[in-house]
């Protein structure tokens, strides 16, 4: 007895020791750099060291310097378009696929589920490269097929035209990630107790009415989660544009996203100069963070979920 009490008494320091390795790595390579990057947005310097405090100057430049702000606002707007297209495609297809897969007596559920989810496991870079080849204007599969079925006039240079490039990339991204919302909606539908459907049936509700009045309301929280996930992923997206178009977001910055803009300003350096403006980059990252934070709060408010059901997929450029 006494020994067990003793163990409990001295445990404080002991248990701290257990958490220490993880804490050290987590603080040194995540918590601290994230916070410190925000602090660095108030500094400027040459090359990779930032030691001149400049107050809000980086932010002022970001929002008002004509050369910088035009790029920033273009990237900001593009990211929202990118997000909107994916939301539309992923939620529609996700709900549709989930409804089909969850149907009673639907054969082949496991098979289709496995296939729909394959792209999620692929590297975004590889996906981007494959689709870039498929969308090649001269010999890419998409245009060959369009020409063959008599729609040759639609065989456009999808990635080279400012009107279609962003949409094309957004659709490729949707292609890759739609497996995740599908599985979430599927799980959501399978959580709905059967009695609910039976009750609806007794009340004479048909398929459509059951969907609109029973399933959809119960899926709304999932829509909220999917939105937040897509939102965070999109405001960090980089790989897909880098693979399909390059870090400058061509043609004419039509596919420049917050992720590529951040890469150019803070890490790689803008095109002609090639020297990163890390203070400015830190400011871009901080703005991204603030937008994400506001978005997540708003989404939680709208879907009425108190607890932060927020994702961490983020870093992967979902």
């Amino acid at each position, binding site marked *: 007895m006494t020994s067990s009490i003793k163990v409990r008494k001295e445990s404080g320091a002991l248990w701290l020791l257990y958490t220490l390795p993880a804490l050290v*790595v987590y603080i040194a390579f995540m918590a601290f750099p994230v916070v410190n990057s925000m602090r660095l947005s108030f500094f400027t310097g040459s090359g990779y060291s930032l030691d001149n405090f400049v107050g809000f100057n980086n932010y002022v430049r970001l929002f008002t310097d004509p050369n910088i702000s035009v790029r920033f606002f273009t990237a900001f707007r593009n990211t929202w378009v990118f997000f909107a297209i994916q939301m539309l495609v992923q939620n529609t297809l996700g709900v549709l696929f989930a409804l089909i897969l969850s149907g009673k007596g639907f054969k082949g559920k496991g098979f289709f589920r496995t296939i729909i989810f394959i*792209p999620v496991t692929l590297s975004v870079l590889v996906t981007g490269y494959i689709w870039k080849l498929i969308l090649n204007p001269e010999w890419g599969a998409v245009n060959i097929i369009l020409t063959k079925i008599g729609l040759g006039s639609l065989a456009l240079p999808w990635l080279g035209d400012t009107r279609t490039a962003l949409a094309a990339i957004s659709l490729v991204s949707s*292609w890759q990630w739609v497996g995740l919302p599908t599985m979430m909606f599927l799980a959501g539908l399978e959580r709905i107790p059967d009695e609910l459907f039976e009750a609806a049936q007794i009340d004479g509700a048909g398929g459509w009415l059951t969907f609109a009045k029973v399933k959809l309301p119960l899926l709304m929280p999932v829509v909220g989660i999917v939105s937040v996930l897509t939102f965070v992923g999109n405001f*960090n997206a980089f790989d897909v544009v880098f693979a399909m178009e390059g870090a400058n977001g061509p043609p004419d910055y039509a596919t420049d996203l917050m992720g590529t803009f951040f890469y150019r300003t803070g890490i790689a350096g803008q095109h002609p100069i090639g020297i990163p403006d890390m203070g400015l980059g830190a400011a871009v990252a901080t703005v991204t963070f603030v937008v994400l934070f506001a978005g997540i709060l708003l989404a939680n408010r709208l879907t009425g979920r108190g607890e932060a059901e927020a994702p961490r997929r983020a870093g992967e450029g979902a």
Partner: protein
Amino acid sequence: MAGIKVRDPAKALKYILLGFWSLLVLFPLWTMVVNSFKFKNAIYLDPFGLPKSLNLTGYLTVFQNSPFPRYFLNSLIVTVVSLSVILFFGSLAAYGCVRWKSRYSRWIYLFFVAGLTVPIKIGSVNLLQIMIKLHLIDTTWSVVPVYVAMGLPIAVFTLYEFIRGIPVELTEAALIDGAGPYKIYWSIIVRLVRPALATVAIFNLVPIWNDLWFPLIFIRRDSQRTLILGVTRLFGEYQTDWSKILAVLSLSCVPVIILYLTMAKQFISGLTAGAVKG
């Protein structure tokens, strides 16, 4: 109500829709793999069919005379080391947080969980400086601590729930037998939470293996590149050597796809849970 009549066409429509999407998923992968075995002319003439004559030069150059085996090895090391450390540190911390009954442990736990909502990319500017200071810049190892830090929140979160669910009697008995907390951790806890460890491993495996961002910003030197970073060189250097480009692309995603197909269920639940709750 018109159920009987409509049932069959509706069913057909469902299969047509899913069938079409499946084609859309498999078609790009199909073209990638079949064309990697074709000669250049055959790619242009017949981009979708099976190769009429087999061209293995793409694969041969990849294996014989290129840095790709090296990149592959680098990626393998990074992934295995990062995952091992995430699982070890993460489970230790989760165990500590569960057993340490005080508000401090609660704070530490919440501190980890807060990391679930923060994309680590936000910290890239400072991470780059840190890597320069630690002289890790331009080495394969530079990405490992970042991946570990990135993976810890989900690890602690998932394992905490699991370890908390282990009945106290199990460990109490071992305690009476004179086992120390570490012995209990190693011989009881780790064994009991194996399924959770697998989930955490799967969730972290895919993003680590596939990551481009951190290798891209940390690593320039050729010999130090990871596989995915190496793939970015393809279009610059082998501009028109399609069979080689496609061979590399195929090889870079085939390991994960095979792994996925053998454990599809675990992957789907692991990645979905990780995306949502993580």
